[in-house]
């Protein structure tokens, strides 16, 4: 089974594709068979950030049944061990996937034989983005130190988290229990997760424990991109603290990535930034975040195995 890292941002302009491409290159350099999937279907351009030519095949070939299997749309990249599936090319319809198409894609992604699969998601809180984000529990949020970006990242985090809770409540047939909790305390709703959890635990300790365990398997990370010298270095950490204290959701802060004009230059030259400016502050930050990410995912896979055994 591949490790799948969905990567999402609350708004456009956070240079999410650049981070996704760079993380993919770092994984491939470590020897991992890595696949990048561009799911920013309305504005697919991940290939440009990793120096891959304009792809001839794309996800739309699979959605439009020009090919039978998703792996037929995989193309190699100039980096050894790194492969990609491009997003839709010149096909406006694919930006609004039907539910069945989305389910088919999700099923196929989970079957692909890679060590790591990174999903570059569309910015915002569309159902496409949230459903693709929840394909695994290892999502990474990307934001920038601007009020507009932090506002939108909170929106995305809430949307993802609340949808996950709803999914869990449906899967374990908790619906009646959740309704009873809300009847006892009208604030104990999905949007107030810790209160809801407390109420469910009171009503049914066993199911409450199951819900808590399920939510504890979420292992989200947050990256602060385009960080400038004058920006407060703690914003990302603060965002994680507020989320933990007020939504009862742990998100690990993975670090700041310095703003660098050369990122723009690298994109214009269609060349991977990590190759063009390997010793820049931004490249060092990327490598440090990458290390934290690998450690976090290693630890959490251990936890997940343990939880799996208990359940």
């Amino acid at each position, binding site marked *: 089974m591949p490790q799948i890292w969905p990567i999402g941002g609350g708004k456009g302009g956070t240079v999410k594709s650049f981070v996704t491409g760079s993380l993919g290159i770092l994984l491939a350099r470590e020897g991992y068979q890595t696949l990048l999937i561009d799911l920013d279907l309305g504005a697919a351009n991940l290939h440009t950030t990793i120096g891959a030519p304009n792809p001839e095949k794309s996800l739309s070939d699979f959605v439009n049944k020009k090919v039978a299997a998703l792996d037929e749309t995989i193309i190699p990249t100039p980096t050894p061990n790194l492969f990609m599936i491009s997003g839709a090319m010149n096909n406006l319809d694919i930006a609004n996937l039907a539910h069945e198409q989305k389910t088919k894609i999700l099923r196929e992604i989970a079957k692909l034989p890679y060590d790591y699969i990174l999903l570059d998601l569309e910015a915002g809180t569309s159902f496409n983005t949230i459903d693709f984000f929840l394909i695994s529990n290892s999502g990474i949020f990307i934001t920038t130190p601007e009020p507009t970006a*932090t506002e939108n990242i*909170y929106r995305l985090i809430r949307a993802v988290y609340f949808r996950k809770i709803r999914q869990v409540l449906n899967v374990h047939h908790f619906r009646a229990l959740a309704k009873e909790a809300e009847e006892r305390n009208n604030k104990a709703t999905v949007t107030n997760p*810790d209160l809801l959890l407390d109420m469910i635990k009171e009503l049914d300790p066993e199911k409450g424990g199951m819900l808590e365990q399920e939510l504890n398997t979420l292992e989200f990370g947050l990256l602060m991109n385009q960080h400038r010298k004058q920006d407060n270095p703690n914003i990302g950490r603060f965002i994680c603290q507020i989320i933990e204290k007020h939504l009862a959701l742990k998100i690990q802060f993975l670090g700041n990535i310095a703003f660098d004009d050369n990122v723009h230059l690298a994109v214009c030259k269609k060349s991977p930034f990590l190759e063009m400016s390997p010793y820049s502050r931004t490249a060092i930050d990327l490598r440090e975040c990458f290390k934290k990410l690998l450690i976090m995912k290693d630890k959490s896979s251990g936890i997940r195995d343990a939880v799996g055994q208990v359940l």
Partner: protein
Amino acid sequence: MKPYPKQTHYKILDIPTDASPSEINHAYRNAFELYQDDSMAAYSFFPDSERKEILARLEEAYLTLVNPESRSCYDRSLMEMGIMEKENRYQDHAKRLKGDN
């Protein structure tokens, strides 16, 4: 989250009930930075009125706990309500665990 009025001063500052004065100061400084007027992280998470209410509760918690007399009076009220004892038990348990390791 649980409504702020239902949280103890210790919970609001995220400190144990046996926190030292320097731990209380440290926790207050951290929390104040998190919720202050120009905090970008807090600005977009809460409506301004809620953020100000949190700041007011933080200040109340800090002023109560940083003063030994008001803290001891507050602790007594928690014990009368049976809250402090429960929290102390948790703290003792945590200490025992630390000691075991």
